[in-house]
Structures are given as C-alpha cells and as structure tokens.
C-alpha cells in the first residue's frame, strides 16, 4: 500500500480536486437531501398528517392488545347473562354484549386475539415470503422454477375459499390453526413481490461490483440485496396486517375462525351481525365493527403513505 500512501496529490491537482473543492463545504449537489433514503422517507412521513394519524391509531390498537388494562379497569369476564344485549347507558357507555359483558371492555380485550393472529400471520408470511423470494430471485434457475411453480399453485387457491376448506376440517378452531392457514395461503404474495424486487436489485452494478471483489453470496444478500429490495415488502406487510385483522373477523363470521369462549373482534362482530337487524341492537355490530374498520384503515393508510415515501418513481 506504500505506493498509494505516498501518492498524495497527483500531477494535476487542480482539475482532479476541482470538482470536490468547488462545492461549498458540507454541501452535496442536492442540499435538500442530506441523508440516506430511509431517513429521507422518514422526514417525508412525519410531515404527512395521514401517516401520523394512522400510526397513532396503530399504536393505540397495539397498546390495547399488549396492555388492555391501560384502557379499561373493567373485567370483560365479569358478565351477567341477564344484562345481555342491553343498549348503551347506565355506566356502560357502549352497552353490553350478547352475553351481558361490558362491550367496551370486551372490545378492548378482544383486540388481543385479533391483533395476535394478524401479527403472527404477517410475521410468518413475511419470513417465508422473504426467504423464498430471495432464493428464487437470487439463485434463479431450478430453484426459481420450483418456487415460482409452487407460488402459482398456491395462488391457484382463492384465499378465502382455501381458508374455509382447510379450517372446515379442523374441528376445534384454535388460534394457531387460523394463523397457520393464513400463512400457508398468504406467503406467495410476498414471495412474488420479493422475487421481483430481488431480480431488479440483483442486476444493479453494485452487486456485480461486490461480486467482482469476491464477496460471498451471504454478504451480497445481506449487505446489498436485502436492504435495497425490502421496501416493497414492508409496504405490503403493513397492508397485510390490516387485511389479516379483517380476515380473522370474516373467518369467525363464516364459523371457521376463532369462536367463543375466545372473545375476539371477529367473534363480537359475528354476534353483532346476528342481532343487528333487530331494533335497538345495531350497536352490537357497530361498536366492534367500527373499531375493526378504524384499525384496518389505519394499517392501509400507513402502508399507502410508506409506499409513497419509499417509491422513487414519485420523487
């Protein structure tokens, strides 16, 4: 390395250093964008009221699931069956559930199974999807052929129909069965997105440069491909979280999801749909469904805002 150390300024210092020194110190050509792309996206996000509002809502719901006692001092198990379906009023602002429990407490505590199912399913889908997507996109050839074929096949089963079939044969509907089915049917979407993203990234010259330096596949994947290819998956995962909250409810409604004594939003809404059309009982549907819709909406809006901030095409 001595030759480089001793090199110092070369023969023509003027022109060589000209470009760098002509810039004001500390300023790149684009002074507005002075940090990494993620930091850039972040700065845009915190200025976006839709993102701020939706993340506040998401945080609120997450805290309900993690620490419901922060939101209510009532015990959702403390029920009197005679009080069932009693409308709002008398200390129970949101009325009583079908089984005579406080609706507000039930909804707060009901967030836990609903959110847990959605979060676990999303985690599973994202993990499987990223792994298979990277394998298919990065290694190509027969690995890609096999994975892509399997993706096509699983996508050949419409999501809800597939879930109904699989769960219909499952006698007791435990939460993990619902999660497993959501993962089994959901991962191909993430795989496809990840694969396309990896394919685009893999052809970038910086990956070739790393390879020509002798970088291992593991290094190329973790340092070069993954950080540059993961943005679309994060967007999809955010939206998927919302849609899995809705999926849990839909499966409960169809009688193949979670069921009592578990109290999830899906279970509460299902009861609500059974009673909603009888006079004065609409709240049984509207209260849990309202919270569910707000949650799903928050995740979707958050995902949309992320997409806008991360999509270079919109810059």
């Amino acid at each position, binding site marked *: 390395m001595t030759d480089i150390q001793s090199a110092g300024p070369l023969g023509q210092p*003027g*022109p060589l250093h*000209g*470009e760098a020194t*002509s*810039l004001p110190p500390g300023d790149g*050509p684009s002074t507005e964008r002075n940090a990494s792309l993620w930091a850039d996206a972040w700065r845009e996000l915190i200025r976006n009221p839709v993102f701020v509002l939706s993340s506040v809502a998401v945080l609120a719901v997450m805290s309900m699931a993690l620490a419901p006692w922060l939101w209510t001092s009532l015990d959702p198990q403390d029920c009197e069956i005679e009080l069932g379906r009693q409308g709002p009023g008398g200390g129970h602002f949101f009325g009583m559930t079908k089984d005579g429990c406080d609706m507000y407490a039930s909804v707060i505590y009901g967030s836990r199974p609903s959110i847990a199912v959605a979060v676990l399913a999303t985690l599973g889908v994202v993990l499987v999807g990223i792994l298979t997507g990277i394998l298919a996109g990065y290694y190509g050839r027969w690995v890609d052929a096999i994975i892509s074929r399997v993706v096509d096949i699983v996508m050949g089963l419409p999501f809800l129909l597939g879930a109904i079939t699989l769960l219909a044969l499952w006698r007791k509907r435990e939460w993990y069965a619902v999660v497993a089915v959501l993962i089994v049917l959901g991962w191909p979407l993430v795989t496809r997105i990840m694969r396309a993203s990896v394919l685009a990234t893999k052809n970038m010259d910086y990956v070739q440069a790393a390879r020509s330096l002798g970088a291992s596949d593991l290094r190329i994947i973790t340092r070069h491909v993954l950080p540059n290819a993961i943005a679309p998956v994060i967007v999809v995962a955010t939206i998927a979280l919302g849609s899995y909250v809705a999926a849990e409810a839909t499966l409960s409604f169809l009688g193949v999801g979670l069921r009592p004594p578990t109290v999830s939003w899906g279970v509460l809404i299902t009861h609500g749909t059974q009673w909603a059309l009888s006079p004065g009982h609409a709240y049984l549907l509207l209260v849990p469904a309202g919270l569910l819709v707000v949650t799903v909406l928050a995740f979707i809006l958050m995902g949309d805002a992320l997409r806008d901030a991360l999509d270079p095409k919109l810059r």
Partner: protein
Amino acid sequence: MTNTDTTATAAPKGRGRRHTRLADVDPSATLLDVRDLKVEFRTRYGIARAVNGVSFSVEAGETLAILGESGCGKSVTAQAIMGIVDSPPGFVTGGEVRYRGVDLLKLSRQERRKARADRLAMIFQDALSALNPVFSVGFQLGEVFRFHRGMSRADARKKAIELLDLVNIPAARQRVSDYPHQFSGGMRQRVMIAMALALDPDVLIADEPTTALDVTVQAQIMNLLAELQRDLNMGMILITHDMGVVADVADKISVMYAGKVVERADVHDIYADPAHPYTKALLESIPRVDLKGQQLNVIKGLPPALTDLPRGCNFAPRCRYARDRCREDTPHLYQVTTPGGDGSGRTPRGSACHYWEEVVAQ
C-alpha cells in the same frame, strides 16, 4: 417587420387573452423565431428556471443546432416550442415563439394542436419509449392521416407504407404491421422520423435523435435527416450535446448553459474562434478521433442548480476568465466580430461574456 409583429408586441405580457390565428401566417416572415422564451418548473424544492430568456431563429432549409449538456434546458426549449411541456410542474412564463410571424404561444388550444400536426414536428431521443408499445407502427403512422386528413384505414395504411419506404425501412409492406419492440434501435428511430414527416412539416425539431444509437447507425440516421431536410426544405432544430455531430450537419449553433444561450454563431466561426469561455472549454475538453496526444482541459465544478442560480454570470464559478464583475453583472449577448471569421457574416455572432474579446484573442 409585419403587422402581426407590432400587435403582438403591444399585447400585454403574459399569456395574452386575445388569440392570434394560424391563418395569419406571413410567408415572408422568419420561419421560426423564438424570442426571450422562459420556462420554469415549480417543484417542491423551489422554482427551477429551466429556460431563462432564450432567443434564436431558423429559416427554411437551415439547420440550427442547440448545443448543451444535460440539464441546460435544451430539451425543455424544444418542448416549449412544440407546446408539450408537462404542466404542471412546467410553465411557459414568457417570450414568443413566432412561426411565420404568428406567436404560437397565443394560439387557442385547437389552433396550437393544428400547428403541431401540420407545421411543426419533433423526433425524440429514445424511440422505444416514444412509440406506443401496444399499437403497430402502421397504426401509429396511419393515425395521423386518418385523424388530420380524414383518410380511410386502407389509405392511411398505404401512406404509412410510403413513409416507411421514404425513411429506407426494408420490406415496408410487411413491417408496417409490426410493433415497435420488433424493430432495432436504428429502425425505430426511422419510424420516429417517418411519423414526424407525415404531414410535411416546415419545422423539424430533433431532440438528441442519435444519442441512444451506435456510431454506424448514427451516421445512417444523420445522413437520412440531412437528406430529408434538404429535399423537403425544412428548417431543422437539432438538439444535442455532441460537438462532433453538430460540426457535421449544423449551419449555425446556439450554445446553452443553465437555461440561457451563452453563445451563438455560424458553425465555422464557433469552432474556429469560440467567443464564450464555456464553448471554448467544451471544445478543449473533448478528445478527437483524428488527433493523438491532445491535452484534455477540464472544466472544474458542476453546472449550477436551476433552483439556485448564482448572481451575475451563471458560468462564472467555473470560468477561468471570471472576475468580480462577472459575479455581479449578468452579461447580455454581446455582438461579436471575429478577426478570423471568413467575413461572409452569414450569422450575427453573439457571446454572453463580458470578456469575449479576451476569449477570442487567446
């Protein structure tokens, strides 16, 4: 000067409410006369003055080259003449684009569209993205005739084949129903040219027509363009960054830098005696295929951001002739007389440099 001329100057600045009409063309007026054109882009990082008071003119049968590096505003100038600046964010904020005396900027939408169809035509750099991928080239060529000339499908197809023949596409009859992606780069650019020539335009604007092509294909396309321009007696505006291509085909040159014309001259004069430091530095920085051992001079620094132009001369921060005056006082286009010119005085020369005499002298 003509009648339309005076009325237009008297009209209020900004986009005049009173529309002029294409029918008012004066055949004796200059074919295309651009005066003090200004285009700005309103972005979230501020207003970018992409074109900042540009003037030039072209006569029939003449080729004007607009020379400049990326981001100097040459393509936006072309789009403003055609009236196809993406708006928003782009806005034409001032100036005139006179076609045979009629200011195109003051035409109604309808008339402007007619001008685009019949009088002006444009060729784009990347023919693959400039042609619609889902329609056959025959459809895209024939569409012009069907729409503007009311021809039947069959007649339009015949015309399309004729045009493809005109631009030397072999087996035009078979290829007319092919799609753009089935053509090679050079052939696609020929299709682009055919489309531009469909309605016999008087002005042809070629925006970097050969940048995406190989040299041997570039030579084919430039020859074709030169030939067609001569045969059809069009005025051509050639937009490019390639000083070699310009030397081969242009009659006169306007050099643009940061949204302004910094030098204009006859093609022979500008290469022999550049009168602006930027032009001079550019010529000294490019290697030549016929010379060995040339010293390449370097232009230090970068062009300024269009959202944040320096005071005074835009080129001053990179200029080796720059003095204090240059950083204060914006130079206008000085009239230049060169000792070394061939004396014919075909084109009035201009240089936007306070010290152009010094530049020429060295």
